[in-house]
C-alpha cells in the first residue's frame, strides 16, 4: 500500500512569496495533519483536518492556512513568506482523528 505522499519534495522561494504544499493521505485515512520542523527541533503542530473540517490549530499566524478536499487530500498554504518559514513541512494521516499518525517524507522549504 502507498504511504503518505507529499509534493513537492523541495522548494525554494523568496521572502514575500506564497507557497502551496500538497499531501495525499494513506487510502482510507480521513484525517490529515500538518507539522513544521525547523532544523534541530521537533515537529510543531500546525493544523489537523478530519472529514474536511478543521479539528485543531497550532500556534501559527494567519499567514498559514489549509484545507482538505473530498478525496481527503490536503493543501497547506503559506502567504507572505518569511526567512523563518524555512523548514521541513510534514504531513501525517490517520484513520480517525485521535489515532496513530503516519508521516510522509516531507517538503523541504527554503526561503531566501
Amino acid at each position: 500500500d502507498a504511504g503518505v505522499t507529499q509534493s513537492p519534495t523541495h522548494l525554494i522561494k523568496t521572502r514575500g512569496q506564497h507557497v502551496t504544499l500538497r499531501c495525499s493521505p494513506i487510502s482510507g485515512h480521513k484525517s490529515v495533519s500538518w507539522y513544521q520542523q525547523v532544523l534541530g527541533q521537533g515537529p510543531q503542530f500546525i493544523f489537523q483536518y478530519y472529514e474536511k473540517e478543521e479539528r485543531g490549530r497550532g500556534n501559527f499566524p494567519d499567514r498559514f492556512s489549509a484545507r482538505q478536499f473530498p478525496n481527503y487530500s490536503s493543501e497547506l498554504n503559506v502567504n507572505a513568506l518569511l526567512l523563518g518559514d524555512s523548514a521541513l513541512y510534514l504531513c501525517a494521516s490517520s484513520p480517525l482523528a485521535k489515532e496513530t499518525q503516519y508521516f510522509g517524507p516531507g517538503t523541504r522549504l527554503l526561503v531566501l
Partner: protein
Amino acid sequence: SQQGEEDPQALSIQEGENATMNCSYKTSINNLQWYRQNSGRGLVHLILIRSNEREKHSGRLRVTLDTSKKSSSLLITASRAADTASYFCATDFGSNDYKLSFGAGTTVTVRA
C-alpha cells in the same frame, strides 16, 4: 511550545548495547507516542502507550509510562547501526481538538 522534552539530547553507544532515552511532559495526556526520524526525513511511528498503560513492548523496544511523574522512557535493546536516528516523544493532550506535541528529540548514534 513543545510539551515533551527528551533527555539526553544526544547518545552514542556501541552496537549491541542498550539505549535508553527519557521524555518528560507537563500536562495530563491521552496517550504518548515515540517516533524515529532518519536524517531529517519523515517520521516513523514506533509505539503508542495510552495513559492507563504502564509498559509496552514491540520487538526490541520497551516503553514505560509514569503518569504520576509525567515521564516516559524508551529502551532499545541490542542496538544496531540501523538504529542510528533521532527519536521523538509526542503527547496527545487535546480533549475536543487534537494536538500532537513533540519534544526536541534524542539523537542516537550506534557505532559499529
